[in-house]
């Protein structure tokens, strides 16, 4: 059944953070200010690659109203950051390796003065030729960007014998897929407020996807105990992976501690673009062979990822891509190799989909090409080759089994949209009206891992307590960046415990208050909140009832938790003790906490997942052969992710994710020329507008899980952003017969002079 407001009934609720958002009353962290605060700015590198000969800050320091000008000399602790490897300098000392590298940071009375002070800092650079191409970076004799060279990480996987695999294949498809440097384009740029407290602590109000990770990283940089730092990190005006790594936090923190005054930083869009993460551009070569029955015999893949100058999670993204170029299919022989390469281009890193977007665009492209070559319907082709229930995961590793692959693929076939493809003739054979508008329908199949995968610390947990004022507090170390985590948690508390919305308070995004729940990434938060509540539900209920029983002098068995307080278990379920009174009358705190690890596969394979979400996407697109423009007119998404925890959030994740995939397919690319961004703002970086988003859209969630499945809801935060691009590529092929191997689609590849035009030109 399609997911929408009507079919969701009472579970479609107004989000608790909604009223403040629609009225503009919500204070984002970049909206904060404080009397006496200073304004911070960062001097970024003038070159993609250069040696720093000297930095002279004397003129800037002498300027009245400038309170600090800091360089590498002023970093008290580790001059480096990175979630996985701390190889990115906070402030560069000897080399700059991309245009976002920070060289100095300034705090001044006004933003204008801070800007002016930056212009007075003299950095003497020895500019070096930038390494702007990952293949050139791998060549012998290429300049080494780091002492260890230019390879961040290699990953691969092998099964069978690939050389034998291609022998006797009936059809072989070889293709190279190229994917763009996509920008997260969150509407709120990075920023925040940094406040030195009277007791010597530092409070950081700045968005992140993992407050405790920021605290750890800042403690290393500032050389002060983690307990002396408090990170307040929600609400957030969008992140999509882009604010997972540190961004402006080190500068705000250094400046605030140095001056002893509050410091505000709020990036301009251009600064956000030049310094921020992007999706890894990848070049994926695939050679795939099938036998006469259309079964895949051999799949040979090579991935080259441009990871930019520093690590962040580039290695993990490559691991994910290696897993997802294998995906939900069976192969006789398999060989995958991948390399993530340092260049002087922009930073690449974590971004919704996490390497799956690139991998699956290529993989699904192969499936469509092979099906066409073999004369098999693309649905039937995948049906023949897709994984079966009980098959192991892509690396041959154990996974939590569901029937998701089969369910989504069958549901797709039953959709009205996909059924229409039968009526659309293959590749440009049927006439259309007007003749320059051609329609096509394409589909894609997605299996996407959730959680960080085996071998990477992936803690989870939460806490429930009855606060002194009688509110039940649910405390989680997760962040709200728009996905609706607060609304989802609210619904879970109502449905799992029977609380009224007024009975509880949700506390997130404050390291002084929350337990370590792990990061709000990798489609993990909803599923980890659900699992935490499963673990805490009975102990917390019993603790509440035990305290109530003592106060009421009645056996706990006669009592139940409900709206407003403890109630009689049977009969009219009369309210016996309001939570407020329960709290007032309890001498001990009533609280339970759970800590566990995100479920991982029993394997030795780093990054291999246990939990997967499946999706099938169909799309109808129109190609205008005069302009070469593609317009998406209808979409269908079947998603198997277990029970829907929050209908509005679920629908919003698939709609929003697929909008990002639409941009990825059609318009989005942060273009670089010799290590410098050409695309600097939304005038040239084109994300979808409402005018691009008018087509039909249907989401069918498949909620059923196998009997006894202990894992509950799987994540849906990323999967919507994956399948649409390859489905559009196939729809374009069906419409005009042109194969797309590079994103975003170049309109000039699709422009075809019509006969009428050709004639008109000839007649002149």
């Amino acid at each position, binding site marked *: 059944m399609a997911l929408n*407001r009507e079919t969701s009934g009472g579970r479609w609720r107004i989000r608790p953070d909604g009223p403040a958002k629609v009225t503009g009353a919500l204070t984002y962290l970049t909206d904060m200010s404080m009397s006496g605060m200073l304004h911070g700015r960062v001097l970024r590198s003038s070159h993609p690659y250069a040696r720093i000969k000297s930095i002279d800050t004397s003129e800037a320091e002498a300027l009245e109203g400038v309170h600090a000008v800091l360089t590498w000399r002023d970093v008290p602790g580790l001059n480096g950051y990175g979630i996985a490897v701390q190889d990115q300098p906070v402030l560069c000392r000897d080399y700059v390796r991309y245009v976002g590298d920070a060289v100095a940071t300034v705090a001044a009375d006004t933003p204008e003065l801070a800007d002016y002070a930056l212009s007075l800092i003299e950095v003497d650079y020895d500019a070096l030729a930038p390494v702007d191409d990952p293949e050139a970076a791998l060549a012998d004799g290429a300049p080494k960007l780091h002492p260890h060279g230019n390879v961040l990480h290699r990953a691969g996987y092998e099964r069978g014998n690939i050389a034998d695999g291609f022998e006797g294949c009936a059809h072989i498809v070889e293709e190279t897929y190229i994917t763009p440097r996509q920008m997260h384009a969150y509407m709120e740029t990075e920023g925040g407020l940094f406040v030195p407290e009277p007791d010597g602590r530092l409070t950081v109000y700045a968005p992140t996807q993992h407050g405790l990770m920021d605290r750890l990283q800042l403690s290393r940089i500032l050389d002060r105990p983690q307990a002396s730092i408090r990170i307040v990190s929600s609400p957030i005006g969008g992140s999509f992976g882009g604010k997972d790594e540190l961004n402006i936090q080190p500068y705000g923190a250094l400046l605030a501690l140095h001056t002893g005054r509050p410091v505000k930083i709020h990036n301009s869009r251009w600064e956000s673009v030049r310094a921020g993460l992007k999706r890894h551009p990848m070049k994926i070569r695939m050679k795939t062979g099938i036998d006469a029955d259309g079964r895949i015999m051999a799949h040979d893949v090579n991935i080259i990822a441009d990871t930019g100058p520093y690590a962040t999670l580039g290695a993990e993204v490559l691991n994910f891509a290696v897993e997802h170029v294998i995906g939900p299919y069976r192969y006789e022989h398999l060989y995958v190799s991948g390399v993530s390469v340092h260049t002087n281009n922009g930073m690449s890193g974590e971004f919704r989909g996490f390497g799956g977007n690139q991998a699956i665009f290529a993989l699904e492209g192969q499936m469509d090409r092979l099906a066409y070559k073999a004369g098999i319907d693309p649905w039937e082709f995948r049906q023949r080759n897709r994984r079966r229930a009980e098959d192991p995961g892509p690396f041959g590793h154990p996974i939590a089994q569901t029937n998701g692959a089969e369910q989504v693929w069958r549901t797709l076939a039953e959709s009205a949209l996909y059924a229409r493809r039968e009526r659309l003739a293959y590749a440009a054979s049927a006439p259309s009206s007007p003749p320059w508008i051609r329609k096509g329908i394409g589909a894609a199949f997605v299996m996407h891992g959730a959680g960080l995968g085996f071998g990477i610390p992936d803690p989870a947990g939460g806490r429930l307590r009855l606060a002194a004022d009688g509110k039940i507090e649910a405390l989680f170390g997760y962040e709200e960046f728009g996905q609706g985590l607060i609304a989802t948690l609210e619904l879970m508390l109502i449905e799992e415990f029977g609380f009224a919305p007024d009975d509880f308070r949700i506390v997130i995004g404050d390291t002084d208050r929350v337990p370590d729940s792990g990061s709000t990434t990798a489609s993990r938060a909803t599923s980890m909140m659900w699992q935490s509540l499963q673990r805490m539900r009975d102990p917390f209920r019993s603790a509440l009832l035990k305290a109530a029983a003592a106060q009421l002098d009645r056996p706990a068995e006669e009592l139940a938790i409900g709206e407003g307080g403890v109630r009689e278990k049977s009969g009219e379920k009369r309210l016996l003790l309001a939570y407020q009174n329960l709290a007032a009358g309890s001498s001990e705190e009533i609280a339970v906490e759970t800590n566990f690890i995100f479920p991982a596969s029993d394997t030795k394979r780093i990054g291999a997942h246990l939990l997967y979400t499946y999706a099938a996407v169909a799309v109808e697109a129109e190609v205008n052969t005069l302009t070469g423009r593609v317009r998406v007119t209808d979409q269908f998404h079947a998603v198997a992710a277990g029970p829907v925890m929050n209908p509005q959030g679920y629908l*919003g994740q698939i709609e929003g994710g697929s909008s990002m995939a639409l941009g990825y397919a059609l318009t989005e690319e942060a273009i670089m020329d010799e290590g410098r961004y050409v695309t600097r703002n939304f005038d040239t970086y084109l994300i979808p507008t409402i*005018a691009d988003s008018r087509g039909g859209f249907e989401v069918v969630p498949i909620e059923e899980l196998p009997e006894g499945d202990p894992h509950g809801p799987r994540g849906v935060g990323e999967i919507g952003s994956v399948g649409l691009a390859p489905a559009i590529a196939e729809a374009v092929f069906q419409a005009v017969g042109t194969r797309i191997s590079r994103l975003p689609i170049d309109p000039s590849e699709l422009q075809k002079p019509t006969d009428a035009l050709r004639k008109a030109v000839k007649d002149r």
Partner: protein
Amino acid sequence: MIEPSENTGAKQTLQCTLNGSPVEMDVQLSKRLLHILRDDLGLTGTKRSCEIGRCGACMVLVDGKPVNSCLTMAYQCEGKSITTIEGISGDGIDPIQQAFLAEGGYQCGYCTPGMVISVIALLHENASPSEDEISEALSGNLCRCTGYGGIIRAVKSAIATRKME
């Protein structure tokens, strides 16, 4: 690099109406309305995002017309009536805001004040806009989170509710 120093130079008196009340302030006449609202007046419901007139996060009404406050200089506000998101509904909720709530026409909410302003301006001009007109009126408001599905539903439901009233 020095930004063109729009905020230096002599201040002059600006008189206008802001959210229904007359205001008089001394500002540099080239200062952007966005910065006056956010930094001088603390009206942070108007958002800063691209600052080149492409995203609509900074949208306000000037004499009832939607305007990007990042492109509007102080002198252009002289004698004008400016309405920001804070002035839309007082302490309550406007029916258009209610439609955004009911349909889920927002996620992170950062584009939402600007979006609401544009919808208000549209429906004020045209009580029953066509799909083309909706799309035209809102194509200057970018939203990265929702894919616009919830926004389109919210606008349609706001139109339907108005018709019923």
